[in-house]
Structures are given as C-alpha cells and as structure tokens.
C-alpha cells in the first residue's frame, strides 16, 4: 500500500519583477519604425509576393500595349510604360487594406490596438510599407520592357519613383482607412476598392490618351491627381525634366499622400 501525503497549497511569494522588462514609453518615430519593420519582414522574406499585386498591370502590358499604334517619334511602349508604373502603384497600394482586413478578422489587429503603439504610428507605419513594393514593382516592369521598344533613362525612372512615393503612401493609407471602416466585412472593402480604382485609371489617361476627350471628361481628368502624376511620369521616363509638370505632378502626389494620411489616422483613432 502506498500512502501519499501532499501539503496543501502554500501562498506563493511573488517573484521580483525583472526591471529590464519594465515597459516604458516609446517615441513616435520608434513606434512607426516598429510597425514598418513588422510590415516589411514578410515582403523581404518573400519579395516575389509583390508580383501578386501587379498581375493586372502586367496583363495590360502584355495584351493591351501591343494594340497601341506608334505615333510620331516615340514608340507606343515608351508612352504606355509610365502609365503602367503608375497603375501598378495605385493597384498595389489600394490592395494593402486587404492585409489589414485579414488582420482584423484573425485578431492580430485587436492586439495592436490594445498595445502601446500609437494609433497614428500604426497607420503611418503600415502606409509607408508601400514604398517597398513600389520600388520592386517598378524594377520588374522596367526590366521586362527594356529589351523591347523602350529606352531606359535611369535618372528619370528613379525620379519618377520618388514622385510616386507620396501617392503610394496616401493610397495605402486610404485603403487602410477603408479596411478599418469595413471591419469584419471584407466584401465592403473589395466593393469600394474596385468601384474607385477603374474610373481613376481611365480618367488619368493610363490606357488611352485623354487629348481627344469631350469637355466634361477633360474636366474630370484635370481634377484627378493621378492625371498629373502620369503626365510627369511620361516626361521623366522619356528623359525630360519639365519643371512646371514636375511641380504640378509632385504636388498632386503630395496632396494625395497628405489627405490619405489624415483620413487614415482619423479612421485608425476611432478603430475598436
């Protein structure tokens, strides 16, 4: 026979708290950096993932560009590629909210909302991530088209990417705001995203020139910031640097960036 004697529960002494683990306030920039690093890790581990967001632009490049007639001195491809780069920027950045939708549904977004990370940093860090796909995707497009009737002006392309950065970040921020507003209903996100993207693209003269458009369409195109960005991208990709177009195009891009971040931060502040 075995007799087991167990002592009753004894009050446990609380272990000393490890001082180095003590939480302390984090600066805004460190907060943004933390969110940005988190966002970038999956992309840097799997850079090929940025290709998924550019399937549509690549389809247009392969199946639509060959239909365009060459006009005057520049090849149709030379005219078309800058627009496709801008389209890729728009598409890719506008998809970013889908990742957030996934985080909202799975629960990791809630954890971030309860963490000490500032709401503004949460949005800005996630939106700034868009810079990386923009650079990678532009590189892919340029590499793909350079063997064909496309003259590479590297300086212009690089400046073109710089001009697109605020636009990408702003569209990313708007997409994130949309995902926050849609909450668990991812279909709301997709419906709005799809409804907005194509008019923006067509009105910017990405696929066909706006030049011969009726007046009302011309006015709508003028109000579209993407129109001015595409205009300056076309000049830059051709190796020209028209100062006035640059100012207007970069201004339009900055405006989208600022509005996007403002709307995004407001939406994020109210997230629950």
């Amino acid at each position, binding site marked *: 026979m075995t007799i087991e004697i167990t002592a009753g529960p004894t009050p446990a002494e609380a272990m000393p708290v490890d001082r*180095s683990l*003590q939480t302390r306030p984090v600066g805004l920039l460190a907060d943004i950096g933390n969110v940005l690093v988190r966002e970038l890790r999956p992309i840097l581990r799997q850079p090929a993932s940025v290709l998924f967001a550019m399937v549509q632009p690549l389809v247009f490049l392969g199946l639509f560009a060959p239909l365009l007639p060459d006009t005057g001195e520049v090849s149709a491809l030379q005219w078309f590629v800058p627009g496709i780069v801008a389209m890729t920027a728009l598409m890719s950045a506008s998809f970013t909210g889908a990742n957030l939708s996934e985080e909202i549904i799975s629960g*990791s977004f809630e954890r971030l909302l309860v963490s000490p990370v500032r709401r503004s940093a949460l949005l800005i860090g996630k939106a700034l991530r868009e810079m990386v796909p923009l650079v990678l995707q532009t590189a892919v497009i340029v590499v793909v088209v350079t063997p064909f009737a496309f003259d590479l002006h590297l300086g212009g392309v690089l400046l073109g990417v710089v001009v697109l950065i605020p636009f990408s970040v702003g569209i990313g921020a708007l997409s994130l705001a949309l995902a926050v507003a849609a909450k668990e209903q991812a279909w709301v996100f997709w419906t709005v995203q799809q409804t907005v993207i194509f008019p923006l693209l067509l009105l910017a003269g990405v696929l066909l020139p706006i030049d011969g458009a009726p007046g009302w369409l011309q006015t709508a195109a003028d109000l579209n910031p993407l129109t001015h960005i595409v205009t300056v991208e076309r000049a830059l990709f051709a190796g020209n640097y028209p100062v006035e177009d640059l100012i207007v195009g970069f201004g339009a891009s900055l405006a989208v960036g600022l509005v996007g971040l403002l709307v995004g931060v407001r939406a994020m502040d109210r997230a629950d």
Partner: protein
Amino acid sequence: MIRTVGLTRHFTRNKTTIEAVAGLDLEIAAGELVAFLGPNGAGKSTTLRMLTTLIAPTSGSAEVAGYDVVRDRAAVRRSIGYVGQGNAAGHQFRGRDEIYCQARAHGLSRSVAKERTAALLDAFDLSQHADVPVARLSGGQRRRLDVAIGLVQQPPVLFLDEPSTGLDPQNRVNLQEQVRRLNTDLGTTIVLTTHYLEEADALAGRVIVVDHGRVIADDTAAALKSALGDLIAMEFTDVEAAGAAAERADRVPGAQVRVQGSRVELRAAYGRDLAPGLVSDLAATGTPVARLEVVGPTLDDVFLDLTGRSLREAQQEADGTDPSAQSTTDQEVAA
C-alpha cells in the same frame, strides 16, 4: 488593481439601444484570479473591451492598475496583457517576429526584446515553430503564442477573453495550468471570461456571474456552490427500507427529499458533512445504505438557481435558437 464605478456600455443597433453592460461596480485586488462567467451576450466581453481601452464606456468609469481607462489609455495599455478571442499573431507573420514587435512596442531595448522573445518561445514550447508563418501553426500552438505575446512585458494584469474556446481538452488543460502558474508564481492579476463552467470552477478563486449586463453573483466557486447544498443519493435494498430512510432524512434541517423506488435523494447545505452521521444512523435503525453518492452542485446548478434557466438555455437564447421546445420537454421530465 481594477475598480469600476457604474460602468455602462450601450450599443445602438437598428434604432434600438441595447444595454450590454449596465452599471457595473467592481473591485478586483492585486493577485486575484477572477472569471467572468455567463452566456454569450451577457456583457462579459464588452466589459473586458472597456477595461482594455478597446471601447469607451457610455457612462461610469474604470481604473486598471491605477489608471483611468479613458483619460490615461496609454498607461493602461502599457500595464496590461491582453489575449483576445482571435489570434494575437498575424497569420502571415512569424511567431518570433510578432513577440519581438510586441516587446519593442513596450519599449524594451533590442537586446532585451530578443532575449525575452527567446525566453517566451522556450517557456511556451514554441521555439520549433517560431520561424514559420503563423498560418501554419496548429490551434493550440497559436493560442500559446497569443498568451506569450500578452506576457511580453510581465504585465501586472492579464486579460483573457474566452481563452480556451476552440481548444481540444488537452490544450485546454495545459492553458489552464499555465494561467494558474502565472497567478501563483508571478502574482499576476488575471481576469478571464468563459462560458465553460468547468473552467471557472477549476481555475478561478473568484467567479463573477454575469447575465444581461449585470452581476448576479460574485463569490468563490466553492461558496456559490455550498449555498445551494450538496446532493446525497442513497440506494437501499428495497422500497420499504427507502421509505423508512426517507422519513429519517426528512428530519435533516432544511433538506429537500425525493424518493424514487429504492433510491432516496436529499439536497442539504453541508450535505457532505452530514452524510457520514446519516449513514451510521440509518444502519443503527436497521436500514443500512447499500450505495452512497455525494455530489456537490455544479456552477450550472448555480446559474439555474440564480436565473431560473440553465446556462445551456441561456446560450441558445443568445445564439438565436429557440430553446422553448427543448425546455418544455425538460420540465415534463422533471415533473
């Protein structure tokens, strides 16, 4: 550690206002392990979401770790760990990166954050699964990762919202063990919600029963149950013996006696203390007990006693299924 005064939250849906939490007054001391028990929609999660700064109260106030959940959100967020109903780690991210990110969010230095991440992965037996996307982990592994993320800065208070929902029994027991150890070893104040009676019973020193946004009971699981009394079930060799025994049992103060053939059941406060005397009395008077069972009340009995409906019925009610058909047959059987 936690204090609420008239904490209230309304939701407006389809122009009707629902009082999800109605004037909660609560005091939870440091080092307590408290379970909010109630059916879905009782207001448990809404309370937790207010205490963790996710949503603002409609009225009333709450303090967590000495900070107001509305005025001093940032300080509250630094003081708490939170394990929500979903997964804390993003499915496309890696476990190691997610713990590290949380550590950096709490202001731990790079080197400390790295060490802490490794230590937590080790403590939760996740080191082997830390460097693959979270989407590839099993449910139990993800849940352990959630808790690890919640503990990154050794918070004085840990909130867990339905921690064991969706876990298999083995993982559920493991999780309960980890939560209990955290409470006893580190003195962490723990507040969890559950609709598993067994969980509240096994885990929590204090059970707060919530229904329709109000606290309907607040005590230790043992006290809640002892108020209802224990069930003493005795079997006898024949019906006459049972009849005689029932007469004797009826003299136990406050006892409710039921006879079914050769079986006598009585429910009485402190029944487990009375049973030995009763059994020897019966043997002395010539009606020896053939078989004896003493059963303590479950928290389900407690809920039934407090609300007039079983936890399962309340659950079905909240889930929108109509329990009336089921409960009618239950009553007929009982009658």
